Every structure is written in structure tokens, then in C-alpha cells.
């Protein structure tokens, strides 16, 4: 066991200032969802919704980062918020996983024959390794070791990008072998579930790069590592989801 102590969080409660960006974000999600279920206007409405969504996320994050740079740290409260968010993510993935399992129960026995277990086992190793680098980044931030923090965050981003790249390669192979998003219900369930997980990884990589930028500017240090910790919590959660997906989708065919 490494002998060291994680510092306690002893900051005042700080409520962020009022912002209209969450409303923009929510409106973007509504438009995007409406676009996705639209029959004729999907290719027009969905991208518009995605653009509004992206603007909402960017505006919210920009305001939040500016407030963090110039205002008091709110590590303890934002950590609680991250856990609440992860609690809602549990429900999100529960729904997707349950749908996948129910659809697979009705699918032909050989429907998953194209799935590449060795490749995804390798990808699982990549994501597990990225969880190690993420927690080492957190550990470095706690100790105030900036160079190690930057190194481990960079490694985490690279490993996350590698995971998504391998998943993209897997998708092209599956498409070539006939398993596609829209041709059978199993394909829809498979690509929706793994695609949403992959999207979470992409978001995590972007988040990691943002934290890496903050680390390079010296934003984090002893007692001020809430941003690194929150990113780590999200990243480990995404790792846990993949641990379950790998077993349920690939090993329990």
C-alpha cells in the first residue's frame, strides 16, 4: 500500500450563477430527439438539434470554466453532482442493456457470430488500462505532481481514443459481414448500446483533453483537484459499463 493521505474537501458551498445555457441544451436535446424519430425530416431536424445541443454544452462549459478560474473552488459540491449524474446514467444504460437482452432473446441463435471476441478483449484491456492511468492522474493531482498528472491524463486520452478507433474498425467489419444498424432488430440494439457507450468514451476523451489543458496551465494542485477527480469518476463509470457490456454482449452470446 502506498503511504499517503488524500486531502479532505473543506470548501464553502458555492452555488454557480444563473445560466440560460441548460435551457439551450435541453431544447437542443428535444429537437435532436424529435429529428431522430421523424420519418421524412430526420436528416434536417436531427443535425439542427445536435448543433443546438453542442452550442448549449459549449456555452455551459465555457461559463463554468470561467467561473472556476475566477471564483471559489466547488469541488465537494460538483463531486456530489457528478455522482447524481452517474446515478441517472445507471438508469440510462439499464434501459439500453435491458432492451438489448430482450431483443437478443428473440434473435436467431447465430446472430452474433460476426462479433470478434479477441479484438474486443484487447479493447477491454485498453479501457481497463485507461482507468489505471486516470486514477494515477488523480493520485498525481492529490500529491501535487503536475508533470505526472499531465503524463497520465495524456495517456488516458490516447487510450480512450484508441478504444474508440478499435470500436470504429469493429463496426466497419461488422457492416461488411452484414450486421448493420437498421437491417435486423439485433443490429439496432447492438449498435445503439455500444454506440452510446462509444459516445460516452468520446465525450470522456474530450473532457480529458480539457482537464489536460487545465493541468498544463497549472489550474490543479494540492487541495484543488476537483476537476481531475470528477473526470476520473465519469471515466471509471464508463469503464464499468464496458466491463458489463463485454460480458453480456460478447461472452454470453
Amino acid at each position: 500500500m502506498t503511504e499517503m493521505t488524500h486531502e479532505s474537501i473543506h470548501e464553502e458551498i458555492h452555488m454557480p450563477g444563473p445560466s440560460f445555457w441548460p435551457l439551450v441544451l435541453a431544447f437542443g436535446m428535444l429537437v435532436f430527439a424529435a429529428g431522430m424519430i421523424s420519418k421524412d425530416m430526420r436528416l434536417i431536424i436531427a443535425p439542427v438539434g445536435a448543433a443546438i445541443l453542442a452550442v448549449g454544452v459549449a456555452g455551459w462549459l465555457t461559463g463554468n470554466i470561467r467561473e472556476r478560474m475566477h471564483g471559489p473552488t466547488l469541488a465537494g459540491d460538483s463531486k456530489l453532482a457528478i455522482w447524481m449524474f452517474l446515478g441517472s446514467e445507471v438508469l440510462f444504460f439499464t434501459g439500453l442493456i435491458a432492451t438489448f437482452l430482450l431483443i437478443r432473446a428473440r434473435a436467431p441463435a447465430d446472430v452474433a457470430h460476426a462479433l470478434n471476441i479477441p479484438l474486443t478483449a484487447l479493447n477491454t484491456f485498453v479501457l481497463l488500462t485507461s482507468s489505471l492511468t486516470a486514477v494515477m492522474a488523480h493520485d498525481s493531482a492529490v500529491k501535487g505532481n503536475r508533470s505526472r498528472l499531465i503524463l497520465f491524463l495524456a495517456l488516458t486520452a490516447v487510450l480512450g481514443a484508441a478504444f474508440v478507433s478499435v470500436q470504429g474498425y469493429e463496426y466497419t467489419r461488422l457492416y461488411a459481414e452484414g450486421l448493420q444498424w437498421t437491417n435486423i432488430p439485433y443490429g439496432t440494439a447492438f449498435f445503439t448500446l455500444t454506440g452510446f457507450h462509444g459516445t460516452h468514451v468520446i465525450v470522456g476523451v474530450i473532457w480529458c483533453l480539457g482537464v489536460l489543458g487545465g493541468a498544463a496551465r497549472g489550474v490543479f494542485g494540492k487541495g484543488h483537484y476537483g476537476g481531475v477527480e470528477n473526470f476520473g469518476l465519469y471515466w471509471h463509470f464508463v469503464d464499468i459499463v464496458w466491463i458489463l457490456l463485454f460480458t453480456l454482449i460478447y461472452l454470453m452470446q
Partner: protein
Amino acid sequence: MESSHILATTHKAPNYVAIFVWLIGITAVEVAVGYIPHSIVPREVLYPVLLAMAGTKAVLVALYYMHLRYDSKWFLMMMLVSLPLGVLFVLAMVLGFARLAP
């Protein structure tokens, strides 16, 4: 300050590399078990074993990498509260699918 007191924690850092070795080791065993033909060991035996291993890995990550073992129990509550809701959600979906059965 109340929130800060509730969330305040002090703990020693676990051996992250040792946890990683366990995660990789369990994954290797898991993949090997996944390749066992169902004609040799029935899926009624294999699947619970696979789920137990996946669950063990998930718990290891949550306890040690997400520090749930050391952090405030409020964070654990956030996750646990969503579990019964998830069970209800899945039950509703199963019933819905059963109605659609041909």
C-alpha cells in the same frame, strides 16, 4: 459548510496497480471461460460465473478507483438509489415485451 462536512473524507490511497492486475487477470479468465463450449459446460453454469466475474471487476473499480470504499456514503447512496428504479424499469420493459410476443 454542512455539505462539505458530509462529503469530507480522509483515506490512504490503495495500491492501484495491484487492482489493475486483478482486473486484467479476471478478464483473462473471463475470456477463457467464454470460449468453453456449451456442450461441455451448460450456459446455466457458465453465465452466472461470467456475471460474477464481471460484477467483481465492476465492484473493484467502484470501490478502489472511484474511491467508494473510502468516500462519503452519500455517493454510494446516489448509485444505490438508482438500482431499485432500474429493476422496476427492466420489469416494465419485460412485461411490455411479453405483451408483444407473437
